[in-house]
């Protein structure tokens, strides 16, 4: 079912003239398949709707900065999630890890260490939680759904214990200023640069490295992967570590963006990230993953939210429409994918 959309990794290259081209270019052309095109179509339609309903507010450089900034936190989480789903797993703990990392990194004690302390703590907590997830799943033999559900509960609990329900306000200027207009690079917010960097690295790792190929292989058929000499358990451990790392980075971005840490942070990120990845064309059963699709999925969601807010539609309408758009996007994709 999947083979006819994603080209085989070996074999076709020998006959195709494209084999002599630089590998990155070849990868780009191969990846722009019908699914990606249909996603771009959805995004274009949204931009059209936004441009017609609110031309002055929507088609505006500041709005582009806004949409991309709002997309960066969940975007980084989704890149990690895409890897996990591609390997046939699931990570339900991402939102809780973001919450825990963001509160741990903004306690009074951590803030005394300044910028470095906050960044280090956020990333280390993310990686630490990912490590626990990975060990439980890869070596403890737990089902990913259960292991990460347990992590969700305990990380949220620990976050609540640290904050006692309080909002921890960041007072470190170097962290705060990163989210303000003065530190934009050529008009691009630093958060968006981090999001772009994570996306590019994620794309390269998934499509251009042995690690990426192993991830796809484990997701496609773990037993076959094992017989082919892949250390499946170690691969799984690394994947949850990677997801944890992404959560840590996202937590830092969220601290910069909101200027605070709160145990309610990252609420329902797991669902947003999974939805974006699935809409993007990553198979929930594993074996196929696309970073480009996931990022487009995130951008579609963020653009929808933006258009609704600009048109002053209330949250009930927003939620109904969001659900409808998820269904529509997936249906359109299935159609276009099966007719080619």
């Amino acid at each position, binding site marked *: 079912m999947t083979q006819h959309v994603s080209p085989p990794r070996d074999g076709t290259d020998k006959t195709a003239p494209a084999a002599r081209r630089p590998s990155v270019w070849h990868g780009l052309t191969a990846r722009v398949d019908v699914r990606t095109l249909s996603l771009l179509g959805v995004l274009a339609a949204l931009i059209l709707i936004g441009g017609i309903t*609110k031309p*002055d*507010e929507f088609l*505006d450089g*500041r*709005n582009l900065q*806004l949409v991309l*900034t*709002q997309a960066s936190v969940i975007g980084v989480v989704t890149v990690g999630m895409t890897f996990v789903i591609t390997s046939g797993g699931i990570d339900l703990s991402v939102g809780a890890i973001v919450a825990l990392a963001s509160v*741990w*990194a903004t*306690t*009074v*004690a*951590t803030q005394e*260490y300044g910028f470095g*302390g906050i960044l*280090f*703590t956020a990333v*280390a*907590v993310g990686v*630490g939680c990912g*490590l626990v997830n990975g060990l439980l799943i890869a070596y403890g033999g737990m089902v990913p759904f259960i292991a990460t559900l347990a992590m969700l509960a305990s990380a949220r609990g620990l976050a*609540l214990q*640290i*904050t*006692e*329900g*309080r*909002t*921890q*306000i960041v007072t470190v200027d170097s962290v705060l200023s990163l*989210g*303000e*207009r003065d530190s934009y690079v050529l008009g691009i917010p630093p958060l968006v640069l981090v999001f772009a960097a994570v996306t590019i690295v994620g794309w390269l790792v998934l499509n251009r490295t042995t690690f990426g190929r192993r991830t796809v292989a484990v997701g496609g058929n773990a037993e076959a992967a094992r017989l082919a000499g892949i*250390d499946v*358990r*170690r691969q799984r451990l690394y994947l949850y570590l990677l997801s944890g790392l992404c959560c840590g980075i996202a937590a830092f971005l*969220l601290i910069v*963006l*909101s*200027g*605070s840490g*709160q*145990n*309610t*942070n*990252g*609420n329902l990120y797991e669902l947003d990230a999974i939805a974006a990845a699935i809409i993007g064309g990553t198979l929930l059963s594993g074996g196929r993953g696309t970073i480009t699709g996931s990022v487009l999925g995130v951008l579609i969601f963020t653009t929808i*939210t*933006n258009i609704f*807010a*600009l*048109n*002053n539609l*209330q*949250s*009930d309408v927003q939620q109904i429409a969001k659900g409808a758009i998820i269904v529509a996007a997936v249906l359109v994709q299935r159609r276009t994918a099966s007719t080619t």
Partner: protein
Amino acid sequence: MSALTSRRGLLFGTAAVSAGALLAGCTSNEPKSGKPATSDQPAADDKPGKPVTIGFAGPQADHGWLNAINENAKNRAKQYSDVTLEITEGSNDTATQIGQIETLINKKVDVLVILPADGKALTQVGLKAMRAGIPVVNLDRIFNTPQAYRCWIGGDNYGMGLNAGHYIGQKLKDKPEARVVELAGLDNLELTKQRTQGFDDALKNYPNIKKVARQAAEFTVESGQAKMAQLLQAQKKFDAVWNHDDDQGVGALRAIEQAGRDDFLMVGGAGALSAFQAIKQDNSVLKATVLYPPTMAASAIDLARALGQGKGVGGLAEYEIPASITLYSAVVDKNNVDQYMSTGFR
């Protein structure tokens, strides 16, 4: 598997352990100075009387305001030598909270103070306590029937909106075609609807003012930042914003700062310490906040003590405490912020 024993593995392991050790030192959240918010308004009758055991059951303190509720209750009880407070572990689960309250009933506490996670769902256990002869002080989230409590004390969500609207109305009353936006709280909650209703009703008194936009956040900093950023992009020019909740206001202020806007005034809600401090410093758009005071928990302890000792409330002529008390949502601005500073919650 071999990686676990390899040098790389060892290095990684050492790094992880030392990172963990470093991190563990970072969970402390105690500020260098500052004591918990104690209310220093005089109690109705400070003279020790008949000993009273008060059972207190509240929801999980997962929000600054709820945390302040617990602290207010505890600190108030400590001020009385004749009060023993039996406080339960907070829970948002209805079944768990019912169990905790039944335990308190079985322990035969003298009075119960209950802040239900869900008022409607806990009505039955309130009734049960009343029937067992234990008077109930229902705190804030109201039971279905007055039979389930002896006294209800709580905040005024409609009044919050009303007072916020009047404050903004007074500030803008001489400005032709003034534009106002609203950053609401969680739309799933009835209290959000009441706050918006009060706000709209107040604004009707000022025909020159028009509410041009409303977006609902989720009482979290993260959602406050996101929704306010969108509102700022949608409305290039407006004169005032009312934000329902100071916690999400931290995010809203952050978005305003990030957008570099200062051409309007902002009014908050609830009464967080950070909001009080910003109002006092007077260097941001936040000029006032309307209270939803967590000191109501301290007052609930006062009421419970009076009930247990069979007294009325000092300052009123009645022999009994009232059946219902709705607190006033005072507007705190630069002029009176010092008075309220100690009640601010973090």
